[in-house]
C-alpha cells in the first residue's frame, strides 16, 4: 500500500510541473500589461515602470522567469496578489474553508440522498419509484445550475422569504474566525441565532452545488447495484437464508459502492467548476468567486497561483479517492 502511494505521488510530479507551466504561460498570454494595470488610471513614470518591471522580474528572459517562479512555487511561495498585495497562498487558504465547507455539504447532500435513491431504484427495478427517481436524476443531470440557483432564489428567497440570498452569515453576527468553517465558528461564538443563520445561508448553495453530483451518484449507484444484484455471490447470500435487507445492505451495497466511490471522486472536478458558478451567484466568499473576480480584475499572480493550487487540490483528492478505492476493494489492495 505504501509503495503504491509513493508510486502514485511520483506520477503526480510531471503533472504538477505541467500544471505550473500551463499557469505560467497562461498569464503571460493574457492581454494587458500587469504593471500598467497595477499603476491604475493615474499613469506611471517610465522610471517607476522600469523599476516595477524589474521588481516583478518581467525584464528577465521567459525561461529565467519560469525557473524563479517554479523554485518559489516548490518552496510554497505562490506570489503576491496585485489587487490586495497579500501573499496568494495566504489569501487562497483564507478563502478555501468557505469553499470546502460548501463542497463538503454538497457532497454529503448528494451522497445521503443519491446512494439510497439509487439502491432503492435498483432493488425495486421498474417500480414507480425507479421511474420517478431516474427521470428526476436525468433532469438534475441536465440542469444548468446557474439557472437552477436563480429559480431557487426566486422561490425560496423572493416568494417565500425563507432563505437569504447571499453571503455566509447575517451581517448582524460578528465573531472571530477560528476554523474558517462558518458552521463550527458560529457554534463556537456562542451567539444566539448565529448557527441558524449560517445554516440558512448554506442551504440553497448546497442544493445548487449538490444537484449534479446527486443525479450522477443516484444513476451510478443504480446501475452498479443492478450489476451486483445479478452476481453469483448474491445468490449465495440468498441461499444462506439472509433477509432481503441484509442481502442488499451487507452483501450488495459494499460491492456496488466500489465504482460509486470513483464516481464521487470524479465529481470533485465538477464540484470545483460548479463552485465557480454557485459562489458567484450567492456571493459566497470562497475560491471560486475569488478566481472569477481575479480573472475579471486581471490579477495575474492570483490567477496563476490559484490555478496551480486548485489543480493541486484536484490531484490530491484524486489520489485520496484511489487509496479509498483500494481500501474498500480487497482485490486491489492485495494486488499492490
Amino acid at each position, binding site marked *: 500500500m505504501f509503495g503504491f502511494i509513493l508510486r502514485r505521488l511520483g506520477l503526480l510530479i510531471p503533472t504538477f510541473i505541467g500544471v505550473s507551466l500551463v499557469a505560467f504561460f497562461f498569464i503571460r498570454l493574457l492581454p494587458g500589461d500587469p504593471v500598467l494595470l497595477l499603476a491604475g488610471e493615474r499613469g506611471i513614470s517610465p522610471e517607476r515602470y522600469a523599476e516595477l518591471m524589474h521588481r516583478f522580474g518581467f525584464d528577465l528572459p521567459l525561461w529565467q522567469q519560469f525557473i524563479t517562479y517554479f523554485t518559489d512555487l516548490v518552496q510554497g511561495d505562490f506570489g503576491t496578489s496585485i489587487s490586495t498585495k497579500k501573499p496568494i497562498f495566504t489569501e487562497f487558504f483564507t478563502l478555501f474553508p468557505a469553499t470546502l465547507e460548501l463542497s463538503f455539504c454538497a457532497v454529503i447532500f448528494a451522497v445521503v440522498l443519491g446512494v439510497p435513491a439509487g439502491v432503492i431504484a435498483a432493488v425495486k427495478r421498474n417500480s414507480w419509484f425507479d421511474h420517478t427517481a431516474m427521470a428526476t436524476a436525468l433532469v438534475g443531470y441536465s440542469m444548468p445550475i446557474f439557472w437552477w440557483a436563480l429559480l431557487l432564489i426566486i422561490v425560496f428567497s423572493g416568494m417565500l422569504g425563507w432563505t437569504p440570498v447571499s453571503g455566509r452569515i447575517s451581517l448582524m453576527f460578528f465573531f472571530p474566525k477560528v476554523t474558517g468553517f462558518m458552521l463550527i465558528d458560529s457554534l463556537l461564538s456562542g451567539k444566539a441565532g448565529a448557527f441558524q443563520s449560517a445554516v440558512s445561508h448554506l442551504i440553497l448553495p448546497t442544493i445548487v452545488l449538490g444537484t449534479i453530483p446527486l443525479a450522477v451518484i443516484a444513476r451510478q449507484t443504480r446501475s452498479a447495484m443492478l450489476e451486483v444484484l445479478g452476481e453469483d455471490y448474491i445468490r449465495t447470500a440468498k*441461499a444462506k437464508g439472509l433477509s432481503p435487507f441484509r442481502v442488499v445492505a451487507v452483501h450488495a451495497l459494499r460491492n456496488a459502492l466500489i465504482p460509486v466511490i470513483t464516481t464521487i471522486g470524479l465529481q470533485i472536478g465538477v464540484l470545483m467548476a460548479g463552485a465557480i458558478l454557485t459562489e458567484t451567484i450567492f456571493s459566497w466568499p470562497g475560491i471560486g468567486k475569488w478566481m472569477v473576480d481575479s480573472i475579471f480584475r486581471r490579477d495575474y499572480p492570483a490567477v496563476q497561483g490559484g490555478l496551480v493550487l486548485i489543480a493541486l487540490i484536484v490531484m490530491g483528492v484524486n489520489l485520496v479517492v484511489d487509496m479509498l478505492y483500494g481500501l474498500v476493494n480487497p482485490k486491489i489492495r492485495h494486488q499492490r
Partner: protein
Amino acid sequence: MPILEISNLSVDFRTVGGQFRAVDGVSMTVEPGEIVSIVGESGSGKSVSMLALMGLLPWTATITADKMMFDGKDLLTIPARERRRIVGKDLAMIFQEPMSSLNPCYTVGWQIGEVLKVHLGLDKRARRDRTVELLELVGIPSAAERLDTYPHQMSGGMNQRVMIAMAIACNPKLLIADEPTTALDVTIQAQILDLLAKLQRETGMALVLITHDMGVVAETANRVSVQYAGQKVEEQPVSELFADPHHPYTAALLSALPERATTRRLPSIPGVVPGQYDRPSGCLFSPRCAFVTERCVEKAPVTQGQAAGYALCHYPLNQGKPVGHPGPAAILDRRLSA
C-alpha cells in the same frame, strides 16, 4: 417419510419472446441420508428446479407444483420469512462457480460466521471456533490462519471447500450441490466429490447432486433422475440405470462415456437441447432420438411404470431393445435433415 417430495413441478420464465417453460412437470423424492443425482445436458432445467425449491429464482419465474414438501413443511405456501429460517440451515446449496459465488469484499471466515450468526445466534468466540472446525472438516490446511483471507486469494478448489463449509455449517438435512466440480481442474474434481461423499456419510444428510457427468453419478449417487429439456425422462437406482437404461436419451448418454465405448470413435448425441423457439411437438427428444417414429413426432409420450424406469418414452428400452417399436423401417430419417 421422505425429506424432500416434489410432484409435478413446473417453472415458467417470462421472456421477451413470451413464456418459456424451463421445468415441465418434474417429480422427485429424496429420502433422508440418500444421494440422488440429477443428470442432464446444459439447458435441461436441472438447476432451475432446485433453485425453485430454494426460492432463488428471479421475479420473472412462475412456479407451479402439486406438492413441494421439505422436512414436513410446504414450501409452496410457506411465508418468505419462514422459508429463510430453513434455507441455509436445514436446506443448503452450493454452486458451480466457486470463484464468483463468494463475496469478494469479505473474508471467508466472516462469510462462514455469518451463517452461524444468523441461524444459530452463536457469539463471536463460538463462531470462530466453529468456523475453524468447519474449515478443518472440509480439508483446508492451517484453517485458523485462513479465516482472514479473501476469496480471490485462494484457488477455485479451496473456494469450493469454503462454500461447502458454509453450506454444512448448520448441519443441514439436505444439501444441494449444483455442478460443484464443473468449474474445477480434473484432479480437484475428484477431491471435492470424495469430500462431499465423506461428509454425507459422516453427517447422514441427504445430498442432491446436479451434474452432467455420468462418471460423477456412477461414483457417488444411490439413485439417478435423468432430465431432458425440463422434463424428467427416467429415474432408477444407479446400478440398474447403468445396467439397463430405459430411455433412449439415457442410453445415449451412457454410451458416450469413454469407459463404455465399444468403437474407436466415441459416440455422441447429435444436435442440442431444444430452446425457447425450437421446441418440437410430441416427444421433446424426438429430433435427436435414434428410434424416432411418426408417433414420437405427433404425440407427447406418457411416463412409464417403475419397471420401465419411469421412462418418458413411447418405446422404452429393455436391454437396449425398444419395446413395442414398429421396427427399423418406421424410423424417421430426421436426424440427417435436422
